[in-house]
């Protein structure tokens, strides 16, 4: 598959003795939107964290936009420049203002002039609908606002791929909505997205494919309608039963 932007094959990872990822094969096409779900501890976070080298894998290969992840710092750098990530706990920099959070990496990594970095950051802050908070500190914002800043901060690096690790799990229901809206918006703009989430509404609305993981393996993958209507494996059925009964 030469047109895939992420290509993972034969991926295996251990934490000490513990085999977290077992023989994962996954190809993601450019502009594809993938939702990953599965029970707690199944290895979802670990899988997407391998893609930008927040975790190191032991076997198999991960190729991102033509560059294979290796121990070469140059390769890691260039992949991290293409891949943005949004975390469950936001991880904004509390000592910097919202605007500074968004301009830090463009200035120091992409070497943009400050004014250009700021104009661009304001553009993305408008896109996530909080331009008026630009000069506040993260501690002064609500959770939903913080998560939207985190999304804007990633977008400022012009990534080709965005990884989301349970971006709404730490939020109250009304804030979940505002963050999901921003993500839907982003999906419709053609961003390649890998989203770990249990928001099944989001999955059926925007996902091209839903992947179900259990015990470090990809158990099932399908287009959303098929995945929700006709789950094939028993484990998927059990999981969907638990999620949807909430």
């Amino acid at each position, binding site marked *: 598959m030469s047109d895939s932007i992420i290509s993972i094959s034969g991926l295996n990872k251990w934490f000490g003795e513990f085999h977290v990822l077992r023989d994962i094969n996954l190809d993601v096409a450019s502009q594809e939107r993938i939702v990953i779900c599965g029970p707690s501890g199944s290895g979802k976070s670990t899988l997407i964290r391998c893609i930008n080298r927040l975790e190191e894998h032991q076997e198999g290969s991960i190729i991102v936009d033509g560059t294979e992840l290796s121990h070469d710092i140059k390769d890691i750098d260039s992949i*991290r420049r293409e891949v943005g990530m949004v975390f469950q706990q936001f991880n904004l920099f509390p000592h910097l203002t919202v605007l500074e959070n968004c301009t830090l990496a463009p200035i120091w*990594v992409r*070497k943009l002039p400050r004014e250009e970095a700021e104009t661009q950051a304001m553009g993305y802050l408008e896109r996530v609908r909080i331009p008026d908070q630009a000069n506040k500190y993260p501690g002064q914002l609500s959770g939903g606002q913080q998560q939207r800043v985190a999304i804007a901060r990633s977008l400022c690096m012009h990534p080709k791929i965005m990884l989301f690790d349970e971006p709404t799990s730490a939020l109250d229901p009304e804030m979940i909505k505002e963050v999901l809206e921003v993500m839907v918006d982003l999906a419709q703009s053609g961003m390649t997205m890998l989203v770990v989430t249990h928001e099944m509404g989001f999955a059926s609305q925007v996902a091209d494919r839903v992947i179900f993981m259990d015990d470090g393996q990809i158990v099932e993958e399908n287009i959303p309608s098929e995945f929700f209507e006709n789950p094939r494996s028993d484990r998927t059925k059990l999981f969907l039963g638990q999620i949807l009964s909430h």
Partner: protein
Amino acid sequence: MRVQRIWTDERARGVILQLLLILALLLVLAFIVSNTVANLQRAGLASGYGFLGSTASFDINQRLIQYDSTSTYGRAFVVGGLNTILVACLGILAATIIGFVAGVMRLSRNFFISRIVGAYVEFTRNVPLLIQIIFWWVVILALPKVRDGISFGDTLFLNNRGVRLPAPIIEDGAGIILVALALGIAITWQIARRARKRQDETGQIFPVVRTGFALIIGLPLVTYFLAGSPIDFDIPVAGKFNLKGGFNITPELVALWVALSTYTGAFIAEVVRAGILSVGKGQTEASGALGLRPGLTMRKIILPQALRVIIPPLTSQYLNLTKNSSLAVAIGYQDIVSIGDTIMNQSGQALEVISIYMLFYLTISVLTSLFMNWYNARIALVER
């Protein structure tokens, strides 16, 4: 009714309680003072600070200002105070460098490095400082005699009399070197400003630190040679039994300095380590995910946040170091306590001497705390 309302009013209550506390303190103080004065008078001792004007008639070999045995007690105190400040400043400088380097190294992923630093920290923290001071003193005194001391390129000599360095002799025209130094600093400052502006405008990053170093050291050096070497160095020369010329640092100062800096450095290393660990892993990950290299992450993300946790305990370490320098008395380094002891014995003015100690350390401590609190407030986090 009214009284009760005042008593249950939060603010009024706070004020009244504080007034009562101050009153109680004043009473205790008045009792102690009147009691002591009465005792002294009964013993026939004059109280007061008049003795500071009398002739000291003892020598001090470690001094930063002019002093001889005909100087007054007051001047002797100043010499001692300056000696304390000297070793405290040198100690704080070295301890801070040792502490930050060791603190960061202890978190290194390199097992060997982190273990070695760990051993240093545990060992140094757990042996009493007094013993370490005496240890370093004994080490220096056990160095070879002057005659067969260790020399580094025949300019720096190490022996049981301490360390001897070349002493600069200022000749006519040396001022131009100072001018060059000032120029170097000014240009560096300008470059730093320009570089920041240029980065803001074009995004290009300029190596300010390296250029600055080159300028500040290079410019005076070039000027020195161009001006025909207007500063001479009185280089120590090894004679038969003694070193001639140069400038000597006493074994006591070296021992005290090394002991204070390594001891306090170990505590600071722990403070720095705790500070860095207090910044969550998520910060490093978010920074890395944005493409920042580890060095930049440390400078821009981790340290600025860690400093807020580091500064308050760091302040206590600075205060501890300053106060601990009074252990100098054990090896005869002539700090304020050591000199004060001599004055106390000669004049019998124990209470006055002790009050001078207290006032001296209190002033230094308060000044240090004020400065550190100001710095801490400047970098405080804005929270909701």
